[in-house]
C-alpha cells in the first residue's frame, strides 16, 4: 500500500476539480476552505471522487487544476496567493470508488470535525438561521469555564472580567455612533494600519481582515510549513490519536501571533474574551503581538498542561529561524521534495539544497513506519542537522 500523500488517489478528472472549487465555501474565519491542512480525512469530497488511482500521478503535482482535485494536493508556491491551498486526500485512496476506505483509515478519527465540515457546503446540516445566529457570536471565554476544564484553582482570574455582566454597556453601544477606525500595529512592522471596526460585527470577520492585511504570502508559506511541523510535533511527541491543528489564525493562537487590544483604561487585553459589543465599546487600538510575548496574558498556567517534550520545542524554534532565513525558498524546496517522491517513489529521505548554504534533510521514515498514513505533506527537520545551524 503506497504511503499516502494521496498522490495516487484523488480526483477523477479535470471536470471534477472545477465543480469542487465551486462547492467550497470560505470558512467563516475567512480563509478559503482549501487552505486548511488536516489530518486524516480519508475523504474525497464532492464530484472529484476518490477514485482515479495512481494514474493521476505525474499530472497531479504541478499547478492547480490537477486531476487530483483540491483535496489531495501537495503545496506548491502557486497555491499561495492568499492562504495556502492544501488538502488531504483519501488516505490510501488508490483506486476504487470514492467510498472505498483502506484499513489504514484510522486517521479519520484524528481529523477534527471542524476541518472536515468546513470544507463541505451544507455540512454539518444545521439550519442556516442557527448557523448565522450561533456562529457569528463572539467567542467568549470565561474564567469559570477554565476552572471547569482543569479544575485548577490557581488560574489567573485577576485579569479577566466576567463576560456578560454589563448589559448597560451593550445598550450604550447600540446608541452610540462609534467612529470605528482604530490603529493596528504588528510586532516587527514599523508601519501600522487602520481598520474600521464598524464594518465588523464579530471577531471572526475582524480577524479575517487583519489576516489579509498583515499576513503576506511569504509569511503564509512559512506559516504553512510551521503548521506542518507543529503537527509533526504533536504526532511525534504523542502516539495515539492524531489531532489536527488549525492553520494559523489570529484568534485561536496556533499562529505565532496573537491579537490584543488596548482598552479605555490603558490595559492590554486579549481579544476574544468579551462579547463583541463590549469589546467594541472599550477598544482603543489593536496590536498583533508575538505569542511568546503574549503568554503573560494567558489564563491557564503551563503547569496545567503536560510537559511539552523538549525536542519538539527545540525543533520548532530552530524551524522558525530557518524559515525566517529562507522562507521564500520553501516553495522550491517543496517542489524538490515532490520531484524526488515522484522519481523514486520512496519516502525514506530526501535532501535539498536551498540558497546554497542551507541544507535540509527530510526524514520521512519516522512517519511511515507507523501504520498510519498521513495524507498531508509534513516536513521535518532532523535534530542533528538542525544543530548545525544553531
Amino acid at each position, binding site marked *: 500500500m503506497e504511503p499516502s500523500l494521496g498522490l495516487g488517489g484523488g480526483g477523477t478528472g479535470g471536470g471534477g476539480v472545477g465543480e469542487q472549487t465551486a462547492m467550497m465555501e470560505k470558512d467563516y474565519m475567512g480563509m478559503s476552505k482549501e487552505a486548511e491542512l488536516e489530518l486524516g480525512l480519508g475523504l474525497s469530497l*464532492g464530484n472529484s471522487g476518490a477514485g482515479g488511482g495512481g494514474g493521476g500521478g505525474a499530472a497531479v503535482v504541478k499547478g492547480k487544476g490537477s486531476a487530483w482535485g483540491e483535496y489531495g494536493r501537495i503545496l506548491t508556491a502557486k497555491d499561495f496567493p492568499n492562504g495556502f491551498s492544501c488538502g488531504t486526500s483519501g488516505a490510501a485512496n488508490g483506486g476504487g470508488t470514492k*467510498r472505498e476506505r483502506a484499513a489504514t483509515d484510522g486517521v479519520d478519527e484524528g481529523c477534527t*470535525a471542524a476541518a472536515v465540515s468546513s470544507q463541505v457546503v451544507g455540512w*454539518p446540516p444545521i439550519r442556516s438561521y442557527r448557523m*448565522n445566529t450561533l456562529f457569528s457570536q463572539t467567542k467568549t471565554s470565561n474564567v469559570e469555564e477554565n476552572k471547569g476544564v482543569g479544575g485548577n484553582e490557581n488560574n489567573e482570574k485577576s485579569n479577566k472580567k466576567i463576560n456578560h455582566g454589563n448589559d448597560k454597556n451593550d445598550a450604550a453601544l447600540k446608541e452610540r455612533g462609534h467612529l470605528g477606525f482604530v490603529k493596528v500595529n504588528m510586532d516587527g512592522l514599523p508601519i501600522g494600519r487602520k481598520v474600521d471596526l464598524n464594518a465588523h460585527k464579530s471577531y471572526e470577520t475582524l480577524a479575517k481582515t487583519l489576516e489579509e492585511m498583515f499576513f503576506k504570502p511569504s509569511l503564509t508559506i512559512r506559516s504553512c510549513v510551521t503548521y506542518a511541523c507543529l503537527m509533526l510535533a504533536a504526532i511525534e511527541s504523542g502516539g495515539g*490519536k492524531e489531532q489536527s491543528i488549525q492553520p494559523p489564525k489570529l484568534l485561536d493562537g496556533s499562529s505565532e501571533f496573537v491579537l490584543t487590544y488596548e482598552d479605555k483604561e490603558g490595559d492590554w487585553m486579549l481579544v476574544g474574551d468579551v462579547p463583541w459589543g463590549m469589546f467594541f465599546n472599550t477598544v482603543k487600538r489593536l496590536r498583533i503581538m508575538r505569542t511568546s510575548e503574549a503568554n503573560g496574558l*494567558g489564563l491557564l498556567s503551563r503547569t496545567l498542561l503536560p510537559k511539552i517534550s523538549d525536542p519538539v520545542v527545540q525543533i520548532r524554534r530552530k524551524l522558525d529561524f530557518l524559515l525566517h532565513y529562507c522562507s521564500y525558498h520553501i516553495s522550491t524546496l517543496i517542489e524538490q521534495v515532490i520531484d524526488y517522491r515522484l522519481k523514486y517513489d520512496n519516502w525514506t529521505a530526501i535532501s535539498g539544497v536551498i540558497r546554497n548554504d542551507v541544507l535540509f534533510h527530510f526524514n520521512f521514515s519516522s512517519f511511515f513506519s507507523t501504520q498510519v498514513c498521513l495524507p498531508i505533506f509534513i516536513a521535518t527537520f532532523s535534530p542533528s542537522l538542525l544543530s548545525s545551524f544553531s
Partner: protein
Amino acid sequence: MLNYFPEEVLEHVFDFVTSHRDRNAVSLVCKSWYSVERFSREKVFIGNCYAVNPERVIARFPRVRSLTLKGKPHFADFNLVPPDWGGYVYPWIEAMAKHGINLEELRLKRMVVSDESLELLAKSFPNFKSLVLVSCEGFTTDGLAAIASNCRFLRELDLQENEVDDRKGQWLSCFPDSCTSLISLNFACLKGEVNAAALERLVARCPNLRSLRLNHAVPLDTLQKILTQAPQLNDLGTGSFVHDPDSETCGKLKNAMKKCKSIRSLSGFLDVNARCLPAVYPICTNLTSLNLSYAPGIYSNDLIKLICHCKKLERLWVCFFIKLIHYTYFFSGVPLSNQGLNWIMQILDTIGDKGLGAVASTCKELQELRVFPSDLYGVGNAGVTEEGLVAISAGCPKLNSILYFCQQMTNAALITVAKNCPNFIRFRLCTLNPTIPDAVTNLPLDEGFGAIVQSCKGLKRLSVSGLLTDQVFLYIGMYAEQLEMLSIAFAGDSDKGMLYVLNGCKKLKKLEIRDSPFGNVALLADVGKYETMRSLWMSSCEVTFGACKTLAEKMPRLNVEIINEGEEIEASPDDRHRVEKMYLYRTLVGPRRDAPDFVWTL
C-alpha cells in the same frame, strides 16, 4: 346502507376526523363521502406548494379556513438551494383573497413571504387569527406592522427562525389598544429592538396570553415586568438573560419567576451569564420543554446544575460545545503535544457526555432530545460522543425523537441504543465528520443503523451519517417499513444502495440524497415510485441529464427540476453530463411558471 345517512350526519362524524391524512383517506371512500368531506374540510395541509395550485385547492375546499404550506426542499436549510428558487406565498394569498375565502390561519414553512403578501393578508381576511412562519424569508418588520395594525382578532403571531429584515420601525407598537386577543407571540428571531413600554402594555391587556418569546433586544427589566403582569404564561422565551446576578432587577426577576407557576416551556437564553441561571430554578420543577440550543454561554457544568432541577422534562434542546481547548492551545503559546491534547479532549468529552449523563439520570420523561454543536471551528472539537447517546438511551426509555450531532459514533453504541429505545419515531444522527467510521473498530456504521431500523418498528424519519456502505440501505429497505423521510449524505457504494431503499420502503415520502454514488440505474429502475412520494432530492450524485430527461418524459405528472448554478448554463447540455442538483416532485399542475433561470424543468 351508507347512502341513507344524511349528509349532515356524515359531516358531523367527519368533524371528529381531524388529521389531514385521515381526511384524505375518508375522501377516497366514495363520491358522496368525497363531496361531504371536501365541503367540511377547514384545515388544508399542502406539503409541497408546487404540487398543486391555489385555484384547485380553493375549488376543492371552498370552506378552507386554515392553510399550511411548505415551500423549498429541506436541503435549502443548509444552503444547497440557491436564493430565488421559489416558494412564493403571494399567489396563494392573492387567490384566496380573490375568492373570498374566510382565512383564519396561515402556517408556512420555507417559503418566501414578501411584505406585500403580509399586507394583502392583513387587509383581506377580517377574521384572520393566526400566522405561523417557520424558516421563511423575504419580509421585514414593515410587513409585521401591517399584520399588527390590521388583524383585529389576531391570536397568534409565531415567527420561528426566520430571516427578517429589521426596519427599525415600531411594529410592535402597531398593535392597537383594542387588541386584547393575543394568545401567542413569538418574535425571538427578530434582531432589532421593540418598544419596551408598548410590549409591556400589550402583555398587560392580553389576559389570554399563554406563549411569549422575546428576542435578544428586550432588556431584562422589561422581562421582569412582563412576568409580573403575566404569571399565567405557559411558554416563555427569555430573550437574552444577561444581568448582574446581584442587581435589584435580578432580585425582582427571581420573585416574578416564582409566581409563574404555569410555565411549562422555556427557551431563549440567547445571551446568558451562568451565574444568573439559578433565577429559573423555581420554574424548572414543572418544565416539560427546555430549549437551550441558542445559549452557547451556558457551559456544561452549569447546564448540569440546571438540568438536575428538571425532572419532568419531555423535550430538551441543548448544544454541547467546548471552545476551551481552543483557548488552552492559545494561551500556552506552544503546540500541545498529542498527550496534552488527548488529555484535554478526554476531560472535555467527559463534560459533554457527562452533561448528557445528567440528563439521563434526571429526565426520565424525556421524549425528544436535540443536541447541537455550537462551535465547529475549534481545535479538537470535543462535545459529545457515542457514550452520551448510550447514557441517554439507558436513562430515558420514553425517548422517541432524537437529533444528535456528535464527534464520533460506534456500532456497539447504536446497537445498545436500539435495544434500549425501540420507540424511536425520528432518529437523526449527524457525525461532524460525514464519513467517519466506527471509532473503535474502524468499520462502517452499517450495523449500528441496521440495528436501529430493525428495532424501531415505528421509525418514520431517519438521517444517517458516518461511513456507510450499501449494506445499511439493505437494512433500511428490509426493516424500515414505516419510514417516510430519509436523508442520506456521503453514503453508499453503488446504485444498489438507493435501489434497496426505493424497493423496500413502501411508505417513503421524502428522499433526499447528497454526495452519494447513486446514478441512473437507481433513478430509473422504478419510475412509478416517485408518484407515491412527495419529492426526491439528489445533489452531487452520479445522475446524468439524459436520465433525468428520460424520467421526465416517462412521468408527465412529475416535475423534474434541475438546478444549474454558475458556470455551465449551456443551451443543451450533453446527456452524459452529470447533474449537480436535481429535485423532483409529483404535481397535478405541471411545470411551475415562477421558476428562475437557473432552474430547468425537464
